[in-house]
């Protein structure tokens, strides 16, 4: 938890000169806190609230709006498969089924060993190279079955 507080403080120090009030730092600070802890449990949201002098319900209200703020733990390797129109036209439904079968989980679930989470997401903005999977911070574009095999093997 000390590490999380440090990450929060560092982000506030780095960014506060750009904003007229502390509230505007909420998204940057939530990102920093999540990067340090992995997700945003109650205690972390409380730290964020205290650090920015905001009421806790305000922090929860904002966190709940955005899909990238995780309200429960996600696997070490978070597979986010786009299933919006452009990816759908290029076979993303098959991509999802392929990963479901490989990992034995459905979208929204995490493997028992905590290694993989599978999420079906909306347009990632990489439609010219569909189908696309975002894994943690990186995009994997025009993915093939062997790409998926390699990615999963590398993490296992």
């Amino acid at each position, binding site marked *: 938890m000390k590490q999380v507080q440090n990450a929060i403080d560092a982000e506030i120090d780095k960014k506060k000169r750009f904003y007229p009030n502390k509230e505007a730092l909420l998204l940057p600070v939530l990102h920093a806190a999540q990067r340090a802890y992995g997700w945003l449990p109650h205690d972390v949201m409380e730290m964020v609230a205290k650090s920015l002098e905001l009421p806790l319900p305000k922090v929860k209200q904002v966190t709940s709006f955005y899909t990238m703020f995780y309200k429960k733990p996600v696997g070490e390797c978070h597979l986010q498969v786009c299933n*919006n129109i452009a990816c759908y*036209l290029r076979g993303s439904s098959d991509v999802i089924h392929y990963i479901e079968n490989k990992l034995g989980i459905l979208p929204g679930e995490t493997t028992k060993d905590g290694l993989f989470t599978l999420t079906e997401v909306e347009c990632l903005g990489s439609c010219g190279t569909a189908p696309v999977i975002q894994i943690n911070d990186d995009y994997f574009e025009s993915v093939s079955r062997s790409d998926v095999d390699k990615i999963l093997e590398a993490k296992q």
Partner: protein
Amino acid sequence: MKSELVFSKYYGEPEAAGLNNYLNNDKGYDALKKALEMTPEGITQMVKDSELRGRGGAGFPTGLKWGFIPKTNKPKYLVVNADESEPGTFKDRAIMNYTPHMMIEGCIISALAIDAHIIYVYIRGEFVREAEVLEKAIEEAYSARYLGNTVCGKDYKLDMVVHRGAGAYICGEETALLNSLEGKRGEPRIKPPYFPAVHGAFGCPTVVNNVETLAAIPGIVREGVDWFKSFGREKNTGMKLFCVSGHVNKPGLYEKPYGYPFMKLIEEDCGGIWKGRKLKAVFPGGSSSPVLTAEELKDVALDFDDLQAAGSMLGSSAIMVMDDSTCMVQVAIRTAYFYYEESCGQCTPCREGGKWLLDLNRRLESGNGKMEDLDLIADICDKIDGKTICAFGEATAWPLRSLVKKFRHEYEQHILEGKCPFGGKAPSWEQ
């Protein structure tokens, strides 16, 4: 048609993103030096004369938007809309990855024109790597004193910071974006005021411009209005990035002048429809634009006015192409699911209507639909359209109403046969 690569010269070359390349090979920051010798009104007038229109979707004249900024002592803000969330759009990502300095230079000039001293780049949260590239380029711009306490040695303080979103389509809507920037839920604001020019970020005058719009500014200032207007046609000027996805042989990003023939782009540049199949339909401006059939697309040119005349819109120039093996009811499900999932939930017609549209299309695809469902879909769309705080309502209604209207026979086939005539299977994964 006269053509030149302005935005995509370095497409696919991450090493080109550095400041040195921009300075040595692209007359980098020459436009800024010229702008510093001009008055803010002079810069704005130049952009007005260029007829540059916003490239995020609405096509609003950029110079006119800047001109709405009132003369007041309040701080003024420039906000870059880098949310790129309209399905099918992937152009701003390319600009940020390969030519970030062109955008940064455009931002600095725009800030001078509206007297802003802070630039916020609101970038979608998923673009982690793009945010990193941009932050590095901004750092370079600070080191070279294009940003900081004295822009190019002049008495003008200017800061620029990247602000990451966190996964919400609606944050591409400018008032939702501003709320998100302020640390709030990304819910659109009630209009009026219609433009953030008066009441924008933190209650102050604000201009929100798209990445590609801002990247067009250095060229206009440096090469002149006539140069810019030598590309495209009247009221649709300049070079433009078109995002082509779906069932073509070579999907990707294509830079063409406005007014480029649609079929030429598909047949020649993109190598035609894949697998020797036929063109069936296209969303020409992202999933929020009404669908157009192959027949309607025959003589269409790619600009704001021509697509509007054809009954759709250029939007964010996100062209999603569907071949003749595509089930349009399945496409409707994907579309409806997106708007159901992404509705911010403020307005009842959008929040509830989106779910109804999804459920009805799912029932039709399963073969259990009824004929009256088709009129019900149109009716729900009518009851969302124009009845919500923001244009998300129209973005839901337009594509879904157009799908039923233009492919009614296909919907009816689902009902009459009691099953999906395409076998109920989604397009397969080829790789």
